[in-house]
């Protein structure tokens, strides 16, 4: 049986991990490679690296990071952040990334999804969608929620699938940072509407939240950052918990 996946997300700025990573037992928690190795050894099923730097050298530092991670880490990983062309993706995949995640660039130019899946296969194209419920409607947002679009989450998700995305990484901006659980209603609708895997993101606070998003939200994978980085939840314990709840996970 295919298992549900647990995915820690690492925010990267100028080649270093950011956002309060608090690991006393790591020599250098700011080093994304060390942190990635730690998660891989502790049962993470995949990793996501999100580059939030805005420098001109960005592309170069991201490529360098991908090479360093691929060299050391023996589980799959996705990279995202500012990827906007077939050439960008080509370089990242050649350096050892398994998948890329695109967000704003897909909204600006949806054909990019077709181009990427035709050239590299849909399995490596993750489309990240940030959405927020405004007056009852889920609207797609860009630039970390600063820019609202006219796109409806569910319509956009369907279009993204049709254009060849292999997975959708859905972040609920209503839930992100609240630690009150994932947006399971919207997730369940996405999972029913679409036939590609859905990664739940935004809202993880407790182990029960993960169980809920796999059961009620029908998510295929769950992504979180701070609960892992701050050691509020350890992945081996989380997997034990999920297993006892009857959810199949890799242990």
């Amino acid at each position, binding site marked *: 049986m295919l*298992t*549900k996946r647990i995915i820690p997300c690492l925010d990267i700025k100028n080649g270093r991990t950011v956002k309060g990573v608090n690991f006393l037992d790591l020599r250098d928690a700011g080093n994304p490679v060390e942190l990635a190795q730690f998660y891989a050894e502790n049962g993470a099923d995949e990793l996501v690296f999100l580059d939030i730097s805005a420098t001109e050298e960005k592309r170069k530092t991201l490529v360098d990071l991908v090479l360093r991670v691929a060299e*050391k880490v023996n*589980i799959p990983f996705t990279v995202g952040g500012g990827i906007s062309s077939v050439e960008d993706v080509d370089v990242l995949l050649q350096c050892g*990334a*398994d998948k890329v995640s695109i967000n704003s660039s897909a909204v600006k130019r949806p054909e990019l999804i077709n181009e990427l899946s035709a050239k*590299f*296969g849909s399995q490596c194209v993750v489309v990240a969608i940030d959405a927020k419920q405004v007056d009852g409607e889920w609207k797609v947002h860009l630039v970390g929620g600063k820019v609202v679009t006219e796109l409806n989450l569910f319509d956009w998700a369907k279009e993204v699938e049709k254009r060849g995305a292999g997975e959708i990484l859905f972040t609920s901006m209503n839930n992100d940072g609240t630690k009150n659980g994932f947006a399971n209603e919207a997730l369940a609708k996405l999972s029913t509407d679409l036939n*590609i895997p859905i990664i739940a993101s935004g809202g993880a606070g407790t182990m029960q939240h993960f169980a809920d998003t796999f059961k009620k939200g029908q998510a*295929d994978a769950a992504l979180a950052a701070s609960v892992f980085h701050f050691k509020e939840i350890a992945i081996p314990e989380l997997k034990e918990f999920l297993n006892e709840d009857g959810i199949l996970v890799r242990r």
Partner: protein
Amino acid sequence: MKIVIINYGAGNIQSIKFAIQRLGFEAKLSDDVEEIQQADKVIFPGVGEASSAMKKLKATELDQLIPQLTKPVLGICLGMQLMCKHSEEGDTKGLGIFDVEVKRFSNQVKVPQIGWNQISKLQTELFQGVKEQEFMYLVHSFYAEKCDEMIAETSYDVAYASALKKNNFFGVQFHPEKSSQAGERILENFLKL
């Protein structure tokens, strides 16, 4: 030991090179017929779409070379599928090393299958030290049917062959290079054949 990873522009081969490096060996990427012939171990990777991958193999005449190799060959993911008789993906005629048909998962399940699934009914030295029901990382929309050449089975939509063997040819649907320690063990077993 000379290890060659066949390089025909098929996606993520860097990861295989790195995984072999972690095991203490060095692998060379090559599309050179002579170099591949002289290798002690050949890895035939593949990510992408079957018919275009097959075209690339034909353009370099690797489609002629691969079935004639006599040293151990390991096809990974699409590499394994191309070693089969035929694939539904792009109605592609394969290399015909394994006498089996490659089909698409039905829409009863999410396609592609992405993630960790279990391998069972493990056979041959490729799986030495690997436990039954071990988890492997898989990413694919097409699968090889169960057949006589099957040496590992996985279930998703249907029970299918997640590893195949015939003579010196091995094929695995999963990515050993991305499947944590157990995957590295399988790669190591192959390199020590």
